[in-house]
Structures are given as structure tokens and as C-alpha cells.
């Protein structure tokens, strides 16, 4: 079923002329999508995703989750359970005495029994790459990366249909960023659930996304495949977006070594394949 937006508008300050998001139409499946949401700071990305689990209610237009209108549902928690939201710096939401207690906090709020929730906690801890021994520790004695994994596990344990992450790699070192993205890829591949990631990193977009949505000045300016976005020179300039590394490399090789490789390589593997094919 997924998420549907019909002509959604939102302003934080109604007296102000400035929209946070404007005229948004969108359809997101709950299966098999890996969506990267990009755009400059202040373009409305966070506002957009907060509409998806009813944290913000649209000024006008309709947001539907699993077919039911978010504004009209009696129980907003049913929406929040279906659409799991991980905020920027999610480690700041931890508060329980042990990691396990923090992970089961979400599920028990949604009425899952404690026993089941603990089983689920063990499972998701493994999925996000945390040792079982960590479950008994205090979340405040962990490293930054581990804390973030715990917070993500806490949302995964709610078993949402769709997982949304707002800039999940900020503040991590390059290795940590890569591990984090690999984790989402793994979750996506094992559960098939749709994942939406807000990011500024075009390499992430090119390597992981099955679909890209670009926001600019409160409006949706692009919605489609990464390849179509990155091969459209004019559009990239208009949206002020950079090219991903592998496309840049392919272009450089073509220019410096006078080759004629396809420049639409979105990952290292694709680039190598293209080079091997060309030689």
C-alpha cells in the first residue's frame, strides 16, 4: 500500500508567505524501494518526511498511509508504527537503563508483549550488528556509532512497513558512514521493506538508490532513477547538485585518455565492468 501525497502544502508560520513544502504529489510503495531524498539545507526534506508518520499534519492536501488519511485516523500511533522514523542524531533519544530496555520501548508502546519484544530486540540487535552482550549494558557507555545502531534497532524493533532515516550518517567517520549505508542495504535486501534515506552524499545516491527525489525550495523538482538525474547535465546545474565520484572518474578517463566509456556508471563495479569491456 505505502504512502501517498496529494497536493500537500505546509507552512510553519501561517502568516508568512514561505512554504516549507509546496504542491507535493508522491507515491511510495511499501516494498522494494530504496529512495534517496536529496536537496539543500532548508529545502523541506525533513518537513516532507515528518508528514509521512503524522508528526506534522498538512495545511492542505491529503497524506495517506496504507490507504487511510493521516489526518482522519483515530489512532495516529497505528500510522507511526507502520512508518518508522529515525531522526538526525538518533542517539539523543536513548534514555533507558539498558540497551535492551531502550530497544523494546517502541514495541511495548505499541502494545507488543514484553516477552515478544525482547525476542525481537535480540533479533534486530543482530541485524544492526550489535553483540548480544551489549543488550545488558547502559546505552550511555557505548561509542557514538554503537549508540546510533541501538537507536536504529529501537525503531526496527517496531517492525515498521517503511523505514525513514533523516541524514543517518552525519557525524560519523567515512568508514562508519559506509558501514551504516551497508547496514541499510542489508536491511533492505533481507526484509524487502522500502527505505527512505535523506542524504547529501551523491555517492550514496548513485550506489544505493533505486529512486531519487530532489527537493528544492519546498518543491519536488525530480523524482526518478539516479542514472537519469546524473546524466542530465542541465538539470544537475539547475538543482545545484554534484556528480557522484564514479561518473566523474569515467568522464576524466574519457577526456584524458581519449576513451569512449559509458559515463553512466553508478558504482565501482559498474565502472570496472565498463573499463574491462572497453579494453
Amino acid at each position, binding site marked *: 500500500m505505502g504512502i501517498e501525497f496529494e497536493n500537500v502544502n505546509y507552512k510553519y508560520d501561517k502568516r508568512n508567505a514561505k512554504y516549507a513544502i509546496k504542491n507535493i504529489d508522491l507515491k511510495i510503495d511499501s516494498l522494494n524501494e530504496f529512495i534517496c531524498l536529496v536537496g539543500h539545507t532548508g529545502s523541506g526534506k525533513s518537513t516532507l518526511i515528518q508528514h509521512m*508518520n503524522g508528526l506534522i499534519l498538512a495545511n492542505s492536501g491529503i497524506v495517506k498511509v496504507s490507504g487511510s488519511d493521516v489526518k482522519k485516523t483515530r489512532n495516529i500511533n497505528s500510522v507511526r508504527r507502520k512508518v518508522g522514523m529515525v*531522526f538526525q542524531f538518533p542517539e539523543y*533519544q*536513548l534514555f533507558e537503563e539498558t540497551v535492551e530496555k531502550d530497544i523494546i520501548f*517502541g514495541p511495548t*508502546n505499541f502494545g507488543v508483549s514484553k516477552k515478544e519484544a525482547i525476542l525481537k530486540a535480540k533479533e534486530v540487535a543482530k541485524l544492526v550488528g550489535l553483540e548480544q552482550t551489549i543488550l545488558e549494558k547502559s546505552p550511555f557507555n557505548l561509542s557514538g556509532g554503537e549508540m546510533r545502531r541501538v537507536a536504529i534497532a529501537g*525503531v526496527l524493533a*517496531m517492525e515498521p512497513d517503511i523505514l525513514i532515516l533523516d541524514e543517518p550518517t552525519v557525524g560519523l567517520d567515512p568508514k562508519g558512514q559506509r558501514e551504516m549505508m551497508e547496514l541499510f542495504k542489508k536491511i533492505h535486501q533481507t526484509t524487502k521493506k522500502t527505505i527512505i534515506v535523506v542524504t547529501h552524499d551523491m555517492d550514496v545516491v548513485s550506489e544505493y538508490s533505486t529512486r531519487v527525489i530532489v527537493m528544492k525550495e519546498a518543491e519536488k523538482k525530480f523524482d526518478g532513477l539516479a542514472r537519469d538525474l546524473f546524466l542530465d547535465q542541465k538539470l544537475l546545474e539547475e538543482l545545484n547538485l554534484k556528480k557522484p565520484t564514479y561518473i566523474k572518474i569515467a568522464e576524466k578517463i574519457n577526456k584524458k585518455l581519449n576513451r569512449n566509456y559509458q559515463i553512466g556508471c553508478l558504482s565501482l563495479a559498474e565502472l570496472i565492468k565498463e573499463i574491462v569491456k572497453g579494453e
Partner: protein
Amino acid sequence: MNVIVGRYINRNSWVHRLDPRMKILSLIILMIGTFMTSTLINMLWILAGVFLLILTSKISLLNFIKSLVPLLFLMTFTFVFQVLFNKQGPIISTLTLNLSFITILLNVVVIIGYQILKRFRIRGFFWFLLTFAFIIYLYTLNLGTPFKIINLNLYRDGLTFGLFLLVRIIILVSASSLLTLTTKPADLNNGLERLMKPLKVLKVPVDEMSMMISIALRFIPTLLDEVNKIMKAQASRGVDFASGNIKKKVVQIVSLLVPMFVISFKRADDLSNAMEARGYFPGMERSKFGILKFRFSDYLTILFSISFLVGIVYFDL
């Protein structure tokens, strides 16, 4: 969220231009004045004076009314308490309440209606007062055969003293609001620091205190932002901040407070490192950027304030 504390409104008026030290001193003198006055008439005169200040400060009266809203309950309570329990002076009027089955039944109906309307978000203190007044009115009607009649006497001194206290609260609140609305938090803090400077002799850490105040003021909006974010994160994990029984409320508050403490300590740590890196050392003498200087209007103001106080003492005794 609406923070009244430290809310400065930029206008170009003589009140804005006054030296913050003078404004603080004058406010203190005014406060002493309201506590030395003992008659309602004098209190009303002071209110008129404050009103004149507000008008010339070019700040909308609405802001002052807003600052009074949180005190509505206290004000009403003070007034009603005086009217009901102060039994001095002559009786000016008597309210006859008829307790009969019909009036009590109507009373119950009104209360049920009030509770139902509350569900539709019709609530608030004004609404409560209106309902309360209506219930009293019900009892004064001559409905049914009363099995008990209560006579409520209204005494003159109860009424005047109730009004007296009411006006005093209004004066204190609006005058303080006038100070914070017309003075930038930084200036206010600067003025306070300068006024308290003599306390340094008594080993009071005036500079550090003023630094703490300015940091606190600076971080109020930042922390409110953080509260908002944490609330959203916890709401996404199924916390419903709008409802819940006591046990759930405790969990809700803990889920908000613990992260807030963690964030505040982290911020404090970062800030203290940044301050140290820029050469701040507690207790060390620092030079000032904005040096306060009295002008003619400031001297005039303080002169006026003092003569006001003398006047009060003279007329009241």
C-alpha cells in the same frame, strides 16, 4: 513555543533608549512604592502612571495583556478570596442563594454540559469562570421551593481590598514586562551586572553570575528546539504526549528529561571548551564592549522615580 521571558520588542521610544541600570532601579523603586501604598485610590494613580509609560513606549498593549494571562488564575483567586472572606466595613449588597432540587439539578446539568464541551476543545480559564458565574446566577433565581437559603454578604472593605491587590499584581507584572520588552536581554544582563558590582566586595561572583545568565538566555531557544526534536523522536516510538495515566506520564517525562540532560551536558562541555579556547578564565577581569553611560534623560528618570517614592510616603501617611 511562546517565551515571554527576555522577549524584546525593538521600537524607537524614550523608554527603549534609557540606560538599563536606570530602568532596573526605577522598577525597584516602583515596586517598593506599590508596597508602601495602602489605599486603592493611590494604587489606581500608580496604575495610571504605568499606563502612561506603556503608551509612550510604543509597544502594543496586547503584549502586556498577554503577560498577564498566565496570572489570571492567581488574580481571580486573590480577588474572590478577599470578597468572600474579608468581612470588614459595611455590607454593600447581599446575594441570596436558593438551594432547591431544581437548581441543584440544573447545576448538575451545567457541569455535565461543561465536561462534554471540554472534549471538543472548548476549555480555558475564561470558559470555566463563565460557567461558574452562570451556576451562581442559577442559584439566585427563584426556582422551585428552596429547602435552604444562603445569604452571601458583600462587604465594602473586601471589595476594595480585593481590587487593591488586583491592581497591585497588574502594576507589578506590567512594569516588569515593560522592562523586559524594552531592554535587550544582553543590556539587561549588563545593567544587572553593573548594579551588583558593589557586591563583589562581599565575594559575590558577580561577573560569573552575569555570564551564566547570558548563557542561559542564549540557550533557551536552542534547548526548546531540542525538546521539540526529542518529543518528535519519542512520538515516533509511540509516546503519546497528549494523554496517558500517571504511570505513562512519568515514562513520558523521563523519556524527555534524560535525553535533555545528556544534550545539555554535552553542549555545556563543548561551550566551556570553546570559551577556554578563546581565553575565558572565570574570575579574570574582562574588558567590556558596550560601555553604559548615563545621559540627561537617565538622571531625569531617576530623579522622577525618587520623587515618586517620596510622594507616596508623603501622601500615604
